[in-house]
């Protein structure tokens, strides 16, 4: 599973950093860096982080598999 964070929406509340620190890190006071490819053992934490984000900026989903049609 992959994530992307809408950083135009992100306001640095850092709830994701508390819930899934291996995937989300603050860089400085409020800049967010994250690991786009979510390790399987972090999936549940990332789901919680996405749900907890006050501005709902985290999208979790599958990547496109072009042969999928």
């Amino acid at each position: 599973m992959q994530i992307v964070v809408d950083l135009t929406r992100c306001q640095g509340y850092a709830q994701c950093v508390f819930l899934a620190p291996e995937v989300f890190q603050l860089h400085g006071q409020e800049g967010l860096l994250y690991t786009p490819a979510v390790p399987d053992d972090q999936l549940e934490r990332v789901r919680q982080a996405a749900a907890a984000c006050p501005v709902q900026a985290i999208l979790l989903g599958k990547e496109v598999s072009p042969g999928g049609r």
Partner: protein
Amino acid sequence: MAADLREGRIVIVGASLAGLRAAEALREEGFTGSLTMVGDEPHPPYDRPPLSKQVLLGQVPADSTALPMRRDPDADWRLGVRATGLDPLKKRVVLADGESLPFDRLLIATGTRARPWPKAEEAALDGVFTLRTREDAAGLAERLAAGPRRVLVIGGGFTGSEIASACRERGLDVTVTERGPAPLVGALGGTLSKLAAAMQRNNGVDLRCGVTVTALRGDGNGRFTGADLSDGSRVEADVCVAALGAVRNVEWLADSGLAAGPRGIACDAGCRAFDMYGIVTDDVFVAGDVSRFPHPLFGYQMLSLEHWGNAVAQAEVAAHNMVNPGPLRRPHLALPTFWSAQFGLNIKSVGVPTFSDHVVIAQGTLEERRLAMVYGYQGRVTAAVTVDMAKSLDYYTHLIETAAPFPPAPGASDRPLAAEIPLPSDVPDPKALSHGPTVALTGHLPDRRLTVVQPT
């Protein structure tokens, strides 16, 4: 009518952020016809912003930034094949492999590519990079990990500054050259560009402004060894990144009759492309970095944006309008918004900072490197930039959307004395910069010199 629009054949040229989000939105809107996605890169859609940050820092591999889907767009993917032409009369897209794809409606989302170093033989030296694609980032990250003596970054725009930031964080010596007076000046104007320059120097960047690189030098075996600067000095470096801005991918439309040029493809507020006579089409739509569109908050000037958020918002509007009849169509009126993380600072912008004559620091101070700067044009608020103050940005977004008077009225408890003192916004002529502007106003205001008309 509406039912018909939800059927038929839609082709999307461009399989990156805008193309993917448009494809998802088409299905969300009830489109049940055939959907074909054409992308010149061999990869499924991936996210680019991490390439100049997490990837260059060595935290994640370049090939790990695939974009998650909101839903499966159930599309036929043609990846690794370039579109080479458009026949608007026969309604076909021609691909590089000779295939011709018929469509009822077309979305163009071909985006931009990195502007290369202009001298091809110098650009081909081993160690000279641009940064736009996954491959660019993988190659550059590998070189940075190998511990070069010094990295030369040409251009002090957002990409160049983020690259320099990543280099310093990795403990690498880095030189940034910028033809303008300071980094980021083309996007943020004079005052914040001075903060950007101070941040670079405080973090150990060898920043050279007001100079250009006149030549890249090799060692005779095709390896980059350094560069000559216009002030007569020389920079010895193992790696060079040309961060000169972006070129819009419009060449394939040269014979299409569309209004496609160096600033992008002109379209209306509903994302419908104009032809070269300024007549709006009704079956060709545009979204993302390759578009130019009018915005009422900025004098109906045509905006060219290289912003992640614009690609998403415009793709959604384009998709909606592709499957809905006239009266149900929506305008793309989202405010331009972007962010940049560099030297530990989170810079966010809303509105068009270059559409300004004055600025005030409405919250915070330059000294604490935490502030909100508000931009005004002829007495109304047109933009705001925050440095490590993202939570304030929504407030200023509202001021811009309501054309609030400038300077803004007192409101914030951390309002500094400086909020009383508007300063000239000091936006330079973009012609004088190394880095291309990531927001370009391409209309004409007689008192501004923001239009560059250059035959290519």
